[in-house]
């Protein structure tokens, strides 16, 4: 594996991590939106706050990681990607601002009215952001982003093709699926079986929907994104298979109300499908327009990135593991357990 390919792999590692961890946070926002009125939804929203409160900022940083890796390792591809997909990136930026601040504001809101306003900003942008990120992924995967080289990019049609729509819808559905399994597992650990089953049922529905949309998506991807389709049926086929099996396993465990196991299955299913996308378009950074080797930055910088990754591995990663261990401890979940009595 070449140095540039290794950097691409490390960058894509960030994409996978963002899809899983931030994906679960986005999906929690989707369920917050669908939690019902203030009367019935209060306890659910409290569980959502408890689940993502300690982790959402750390999970969000994966996006920064990916962007920085991309512009450092593949500067021309980054400039082309962000310039061409200017419009969806604006929506993503707006969504990120409203989601993060809305979430923080709601936690300290004074009145129910204000909490609903901030909560609506948080929840609605939790749908918008992954949708447009999915559209961006679809645009790149269907070969609609080419290097700039003095040409004006197509600002609209580049991200409105069939694959982009598939990407957007699938992103929202898989985020919801992940989040519901996470929330079910968290509620269960906090000792609230009723809440766990509430999210468990939603995990089942969104999981089945995700699978169904993925099947339906085969046709548009075949006709719209040849390179991706070939890859998914060829070298990436094992990952697609793993995703399918893990997804079915998750649904099976959800039905049995074994939420911790279901969560493992859901994570593997989503990670495998994202990795499958990456493998399918390898060695292209921008499908059909830019290969890793052609757009890689200076070698000295690529070596630098490896060192940065090594530094992250001994600083940020152990810290993150500790954070996840803590939030999964029973005494950290207890707080959530007390709350529903009044909701």
């Amino acid at each position: 594996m070449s140095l540039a390919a290794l950097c691409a792999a490390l960058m894509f590692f960030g994409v996978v991590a963002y899809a899983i961890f931030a994906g679960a946070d986005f999906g929690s926002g989707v369920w917050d939106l669908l939690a019902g009125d203030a009367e019935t939804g209060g306890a659910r929203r409290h569980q959502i706050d408890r689940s993502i409160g300690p982790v959402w900022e750390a999970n969000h940083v994966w996006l920064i990681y990916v962007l920085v890796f991309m512009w450092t390792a593949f500067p021309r591809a980054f400039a082309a990607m962000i310039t061409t997909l200017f419009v969806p990136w604006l929506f993503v930026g707006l969504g990120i601002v409203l989601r993060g601040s809305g979430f923080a504001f709601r936690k300290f809101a004074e009145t129910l009215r204000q909490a609903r306003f901030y909560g609506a900003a948080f929840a609605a942008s939790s749908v918008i952001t992954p949708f447009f990120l999915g559209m961006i992924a679809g645009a790149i995967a269907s070969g609609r982003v080419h290097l700039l080289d003095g040409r004006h990019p197509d600002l609209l049609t580049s991200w409105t093709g069939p694959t982009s729509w598939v990407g957007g819808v699938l992103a929202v559905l898989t985020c919801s699926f992940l989040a519901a399994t996470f929330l079910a597992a968290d509620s269960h650990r906090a000792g609230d079986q009723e809440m766990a089953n509430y999210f468990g049922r939603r995990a089942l529905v969104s999981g089945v929907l995700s699978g169904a949309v993925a099947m339906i998506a085969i046709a548009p991807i075949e006709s719209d994104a040849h390179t991706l389709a070939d890859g998914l049926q060829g070298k990436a086929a094992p990952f697609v298979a793993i995703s399918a099996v893990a997804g079915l396993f998750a649904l099976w465990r959800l039905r049995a109300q074994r939420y911790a196991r279901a969560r493992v299955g859901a994570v593997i299913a989503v990670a495998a499908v994202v990795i499958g996308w990456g493998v399918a378009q390898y060695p292209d950074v921008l499908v059909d327009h830019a290969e890793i080797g052609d757009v890689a930055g200076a070698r000295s910088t690529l070596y630098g990135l490896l060192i940065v990754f090594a530094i992250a591995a001994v600083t940020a990663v152990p810290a993150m593991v500790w954070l996840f261990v803590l939030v999964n401890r029973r005494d950290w979940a207890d707080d959530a357990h007390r709350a529903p009595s009044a909701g």
Partner: protein
Amino acid sequence: MLAVSASQLLAARDQMALSLGFHIVLSCFGVAFPTLIYIVHRRGLRGDADALLLAKRWSKVAAVLFAVGAVSGTVLSFEMGLLWPGLMSRFGDVVGLPFALEGIAFFVEAIFLGIYLYGWNKLPPKVHLRTLVPMMAAGVVGTFCVVAVNAWMNSPSGFHLVTAADGTQRITDVQPLTAMFNNAVWTEFLHMFVAAYMVVGFLAAAVYASGMLKGRRDRVHRLGFTVAFAVASVGALVQPLIGHIAGMRLAEHQPVKLAAMELATTTEKNAPLRIGGILIDGTVRAVIEIPGISSLLARGWFDRPVPGLDQVPKADQPPANVVHNSFQIMVGIGTALLLFAVFFWWRRRRNRGTDRDLLTSRRFLRLAVIAGPLAVIALESGWTTTEVGRQPWIVQGVLRVKDAVTPNGGIWFSFTVIAIVYAGLATITSRVLRSMSRRWRENGEVDLPTPYGPPSDDPNPSGRAAGRRGVHA
């Protein structure tokens, strides 16, 4: 290159200026606030209940400010590409390393913020206190890395520019570490790092000074004020020295910026310090000149020449009036804050053992309230000085701003959206923080329940009642 209209360039610059100007204040809190919290938290663990109360409240304030800071920082990372693809596509790999390291610092800060905020009463107290240390360290590293990129734009190094026979330019021999540890990085980093502590210290002190003006003279207010003011004072004392060294560096490496800051039209020995003044048609008007002082300050002695704007063609000169005046505002406020800090500690020492107390002086408290916003204005002016002073270059002497801007239209639209959203964010942030502070005073408890829904014992509560009782009722 694709032609870009002047209006579009202006929109892109305005959007960047607004986004940075907004984020820079919040990032100061990310850098310096953990230290302030650490001081009161440590004191609290040693038995000072008021200090512990402050630590708990400040950690909740941090939760709000850091969230807004995290998202507005993300917007900036988007904008590096959205607005300046010409910079990122050419130099992304030259300046990428400090950005990547900053990413790690951001990770560490976000992770330990989560642990700290939710670790109250769960982690062992000493371990909990120590989770602030990685956040403080991340503040140092993060500031260094982000400022390293800006310093590189002022003093580019770590690459070679090769012009081919057909006139196209290629970047070779990239040395990311040389780029990161460029000539300007240490002075710029120290200047910004200390500025962060000054901004947070003076702002926090202003909040408690304003409380004391309203008659809240309890020990919590006095302690909050003193801790914050002490931190700000240390910054105010060392900042002029750092700024001075940074200015001396300019004479050698960015003489045009220095010329604009000093409003020097031509290179001259024994150059005067110009206070006030405006450059109209090449002539400086309405100015007080003190002979020789500019040479002394910028070059170290009276007979050394201070460079003038005329060393470069008109097209390569920054708008001197903006640079000069923002520089003067920064220096003026910095000097005033230094004197104010010295005054406070001197009087406090003199008053020791007597019943006189500066914190009961309304005049002093009013000044302390003003010092907070003034520190922010100094920060913004300093940033304006360095950024506008580099114009028309985005990378000094290498790449012009107009050659780096996006070819996409519609920047006025995105600028307008950002302006509206940020105005709303600023309003709501201050509203939420003020409401938190009011409820802390009214309830006496630190924990503020979130009103997810109406409490179950009252089917039709007013919004406020629900807020007070919340889910823990």
